[in-house]
């Protein structure tokens, strides 16, 4: 019965217009299954067996990607409930547990973010220890480092959004470092080197590196808006594009590395 039904579905015009290959049972159809799917075809068609062994990759790159997707989905759901203005932000976060069905959205998003930091570090450690940054993969290692920075910035900008004591003071500690940037930070070395003319400094508390980050001299309402936009739009988009490049390059560089 079931087989007949399935066979019928597979023979319809709708099905065959979506899936251009038969059931992936033999070599040809299995190759087709990967090649004709836009997501799957980020993979090569065949891989070295040792490369996908769990003890070789620790699955950490894949886990990082999984967490990126989980963060994207839970993050979009969170955006339905959260308003990035200081009058509402904290209450909206409180409401998440009380009023939203299955109130673990925020937990998933927060622990997922922590987990992603850990998995990306471990992924980097595995790539390093297998020497997989060596030719021809130097460039992809570089893409990875940028992804690492983006991931940490994503976590950092997200840290502010609950607008509780932990949030603003952690961000204050972090952004205080910006004030110390050499030349471009008010409290950094040589902050008075740049000047429009004698006596009119270019770098002031209202124009230094920390101000650029916070849109103010302290962590306040404009900083919340700035971090929100960075966190929800700018950084994820850039990270998404780079992840695509990262995956594409893995393929182009000859798949997951192995002894040559």
């Amino acid at each position, binding site marked *: 019965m079931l087989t007949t039904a399935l066979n019928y579905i597979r023979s319809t015009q709708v099905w065959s217009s979506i899936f251009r290959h038969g059931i992936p049972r033999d070599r040809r159809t299995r190759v087709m299954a990967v090649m004709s799917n836009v997501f799957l075809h980020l993979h090569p068609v065949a*891989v070295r067996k040792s490369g996908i062994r769990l003890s070789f990759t620790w699955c950490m790159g894949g886990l990082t990607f999984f967490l990126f997707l989980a963060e994207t989905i839970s993050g979009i759901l969170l955006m339905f409930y959260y308003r990035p203005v200081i009058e509402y932000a904290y209450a909206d976060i409180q409401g998440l547990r009380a009023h939203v069905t299955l109130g673990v959205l925020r937990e998933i998003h*927060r622990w997922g973010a922590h987990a992603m930091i850990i998995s990306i570090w471990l992924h980097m450690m595995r790539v390093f220890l297998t*020497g997989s940054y060596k030719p021809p993969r*130097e460039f992809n290692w570089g893409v990875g480092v940028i992804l690492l920075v983006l991931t940490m910035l994503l976590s*950092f900008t997200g840290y502010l959004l609950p607008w509780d*004591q932990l949030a603003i003071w*952690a961000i204050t*500690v972090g952004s205080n470092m910006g004030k110390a940037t050499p030349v471009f930070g008010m409290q950094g070395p*040589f902050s008075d080197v740049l000047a429009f003319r004698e006596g009119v400094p270019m770098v002031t508390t209202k124009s230094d590196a920390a101000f650029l980050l916070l849109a103010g001299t302290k962590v306040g309402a404009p900083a919340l808006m700035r971090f929100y936009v960075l966190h929800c739009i700018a950084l994820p988009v850039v990270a998404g594009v780079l992840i695509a490049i990262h995956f594409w390059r893995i393929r182009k560089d000859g798949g997951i590395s192995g002894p040559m």
Partner: protein
Amino acid sequence: MFSNPFLLAAGRDPFVELPQLEGVKQFVNNWSPPEFSLPFIVLLFIVLLLTYKKWTKPVIALTLLVVFVVVYFGAMLVDYNYYEILKKADNVPITIMLLGCGIFLWTAFRQAARNDVRLEAGKPLVDEERDDKVLVWPDLVYTELICLVLASAVLVIWAVVLPAPLESPANPAGPPNPSKAPWYFLGLQEMLVYFDPWMAGVILPVMIITGLIAMPYFDTNPKGNGYYTFRERPFAISVWLFGFLILWVVLIVFGVFLRGPNWNFFGPFAYWDANMQVPLTNVMMSDYFWNPKDLLGFGWSYALPKNPFIREISGIVFTAAWVFILPPLLARTVMRKMCMQLGTFRFYVMAFHLVIMAMLPLKMALRWLLTLKYFIYLPEYNLNL
């Protein structure tokens, strides 16, 4: 959550009071400040690298893991302060990271040991012997599917069991003490003990990033590409793991678990006393240079010169030598071969990153031994190093 269920049931304080343990706790507290524990950790790191063929044997590694887990979690039952730190929801990831690092280092060095034994015997690597290609569908796609399901389950369980913390609403007038950056930046915050923010918060992070990106171009050793080994690239692995494990992960553990109010250091079993006063002795390199008599008890004693650059001349010369003379010195001595392989330009970019990285342990050691605060102290230019 982790308190002792038996004592709770008996209606008693959940913490086992073992007076015999007081001495042990005191001992651990006394020896855990970085000036004592970090040299010890570095020593342990070196021993682990040297003996990787031994400790990676499953029996030994498993014993080490069990001992670590028993001590690490067991201590929660017998000490309230330690329990309070470890059970904090935001600190749970640190524990996961420590276990993750340990387990993955084991798998890496175990496979390295196996490969290295084969290389020494002139045999092919483990993977070369069994290397056949498999199709992505079904082998990889199904593995990915299983991982996806498992990872989702773990994440959901974690989220259900552990509520995300939310503190009182933001109060711009009342900073908590201690104020800590997010945990993954605490290695940098810990560096603030030794360097000013422009160094710890700007220069060092930037150089970590540029160093990482440039690393594949520094390491021209063609061996060890695509398999675990230690024998074929001991220098690269030692330096990198020293940076990652000691200067990053261990400093994060210090920052999260052991830095209390006013960023004072507290042993794992110590109470975070906000009123604790730690006497600060700030000695500059210029003080040692112009006035060793007062500080060391011998030599000369001059008043500090007025001109800031003359006053700081010792620090300026020292820093310049460290950054500009040490690399060429290395190029002519111990790193001669490396310099020839890399070419001058690459070698100096690499050496520059290396000496800046080495500045952190150097500064730590001088702080502990000589209470040195700055090499260069030029408040006139906000330039303290």
